[in-house]
């Protein structure tokens, strides 16, 4: 099991709500809150490979200007 914390930065404030909804639609993502520096999320995936795929998917969205993983854990839990 791989668990990560990340901050997703929208291209502009106006994209925030749509982006939040889109993030919530992903099975591996829990949106925590929206702050001045971006949207705080927790990712939980079966392994690091899937975590990477989800991260890359989010990072590739047009409305995302930056995606930063800020915490990892990948022990068996």
């Amino acid at each position: 099991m791989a668990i990560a914390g990340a901050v997703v930065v929208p291209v502009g404030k106006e994209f925030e709500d749509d982006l939040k909804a889109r993030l919530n639609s992903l099975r591996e993502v829990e949106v925590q809150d929206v702050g001045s520096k971006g949207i705080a999320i927790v990712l939980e995936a079966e392994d690091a490979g899937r975590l990477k795929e989800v991260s890359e998917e989010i990072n590739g969205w047009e409305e995302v200007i930056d995606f930063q993983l800020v915490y990892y854990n990948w022990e068996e839990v």
Partner: protein
Amino acid sequence: MALSRRDFIKASAAAAALSMAGLPVEVLADPSIRYGRSQCRFCGTGCTVLAGVKNGKVVSVKGDADSPINFGRLCMKGYSLPHIMYGKDRLTRPLVRQADGGYKEVSWDEAFDLIAERFAGYIKKYGPDSVAWYGSGQNTTQEAFAANKLFKGIIGTANVEGNPRLCMASAVGGYLNTFGADEPAGTYDDLDATDCFFIIGSNTAEQHPMLFRRVIDRKSAYPGRVKVIVADPRYTPTARYADLHLKFRPGYDTFLLNAMAQVIIEEGLVDHDHLKYCTFRKGLKTKGDFVDFEAFKAFLSDYAPEKVESRVGVPAGDIREAARLFGRKGYATVSLWTMGLNQRTKGVQLNCQVHNLHLLTGKIGKPGCDSLSLTGQPNACGGTREQGGLTHILPGHRAVANPKHRAEIAEIWGVPVEWLPKKPTGPAVNMFMRLGEGKIKAIWINTTNPGQSLPNASRHREAMKKAFTVVSDVYPTRTTELATVILPSSMWVEKEGVMGQTDRRSQFIPKLVDPPAGAISDFQQIKEVARRIARKLGRKTRYRVIDPGTGKVKGVKEVYGLGFETEEEAWNEYRLCTRGQDVDLWGATYEKLKAHAGGVQWPCTSTEFNNRGSAKRYISKDRAREVFGSTVRQYRTGYVTLYDQHLEQKGLKGPINYYGGHPFHKGSKGKAIVRVLKAGLDYEMPDAEYPYVLNTGRVIEHWHSGTMTMRVKLLRELNPRAYVEVSPEDARSLGVSSGDRLKLTSRRGEIVLPVWVTERARPGMVFVPWFDEKKLINLLTIDDPKSWSGAKQPDYKVCAIKIQRV
């Protein structure tokens, strides 16, 4: 209700994310973990970290919110720090190679005695230049200083080199040629105040992620005002973020930069007030004539964007737009670059050409303005550039070839000046060539992996295998497999030291945990070997015990060896070497380094506790007041001055004074030099036989040769093996898809790699990361001296290859 382990981890992940998103957090503290402040072990940013210790092991790490570098953030490598220490294959016993090729465990005394016997034997028989030291930008400054004193001070050879030669020598050359002094004028704080980021030859988003966060923060706060220009043949994540991406043809950036200078002049973006502090000179070093602004203007007329666009591969309109954004009057600009400029045949020239743009537009020495070379290793600046860890330099920005400098250092080291070498021997790759020729008989390789990192690695691997090669490291590597003696070292917070980063900053690393039983610090290793070699050579050091507050000599001890016993004593002797120099670290006392998150920035001339050094160089107190509205910047603890403390201490005339003084700066006292430089190409450009360009570099998940990051399960799983990035256009012409395999062949070697078809790659150019020890891409790269930059740095970015589907 008790939290499950999974809940706890998720809560921790949420806390980190919320904190980074600028939200208040309820921290789930584990009271059994004690945190100590340290610095990240990886790149040259120097993020301040808090390492959590429990039961004698590092179990967690978090960014230090008090740090003026990373403000509590860390990247994925930073968060992986605890895991680099506990790989199952840590080296824990000294090993000596046997006749059958196997290794035998020996005691530390046996290992030290063997090394001293062989080194001293060669020195007596063949002279001091028969032995060598190859260190690292990851040694602490004390380790590098100890090795320098042993080899240059006691043994008397200039065979002291290190891997920073492979990563930032060209940047040094650029600063020396332009300012007459190494290292930047500005600081990371400029990133928070700029209006334009000019990023060239750097994938900052992946290689210096915490600095790139500051780019994003600044851009997000002022999206209309702040512009990001990225010049890179690859479409990296950094380029993806740019307002303007200049995807130039590999090798043609010397044309691009001259074209930008031409537009700056043609369109009236020159700051003529600032030009009062500049001279113009043809060529590099001291070879060419001085010219004037009009001559430079005329010279650049051949580089108008419309004249060079086809060669550069970027539309003239984009080049003009980049120059306009760079030179906007009343706006600030910061340039950032790394290996894309440094690891190039024209590396020194490219550095100077970026400086030229800042000098012309006056975008230096002001808020948000600097020409800021980013470094790749955590102590390349401190341990090598400042400390003098290369063949031609001595501690405190002094030169081996300068008799006065030798005398000054000999006095501090407590050795007769005649022992010191009078001239340099040769740069890193040349040293390994001499090893291969048998001129160097024995080499000590410490905290680096040249068996994987040297260009044209095959020949140098042979040389290491044949010679008496000592390798100190923490894990088995592609270099330890070549060693005669392997010494197991402690790492990161298993030992104490100081490291210096990009913006003239030094930080303290405390010893928080013990190394695995059997491993000891490199500092201890060097001390022990020095003691034994000095005894065998009959050379005693007159070690001066100094008062760390005043520098006064309290006593003298005659000893075999280095004299200093602790890291703090070594640091204090080193501080003396810098006192009064431009790289003045006299004010960087242990007390201050331990107390202030983010450390001290030189020049720091005073030991006053709150004085953390100078954020800006080359400007006076009055000038700081004029452009910043203040003379100091307060941090949570202590302050930095916004003026140059060295300039003030020496009573040099302001408001701007490029005091430099390096021989390359001759004739330009007090002024910077705009270098008039004809555009040129890298040594090995593609041709009919080898039609593709090979570009090599790092990836976000791994650091350098992967010795540490490949021991971290997550990072290894995220990016397990090397690959070749191929553009969709080239993939079509080669008839390959992602996952297929290609054979890459250069004039020196070949390799087979899986393909990744991606828009990142430029048609005609492929990229291969070098972290994978099973796929040595440096078997293909160039080591021909003609390919080195003026600073003797090899070219890892433009190497001609052919490609076949296999």
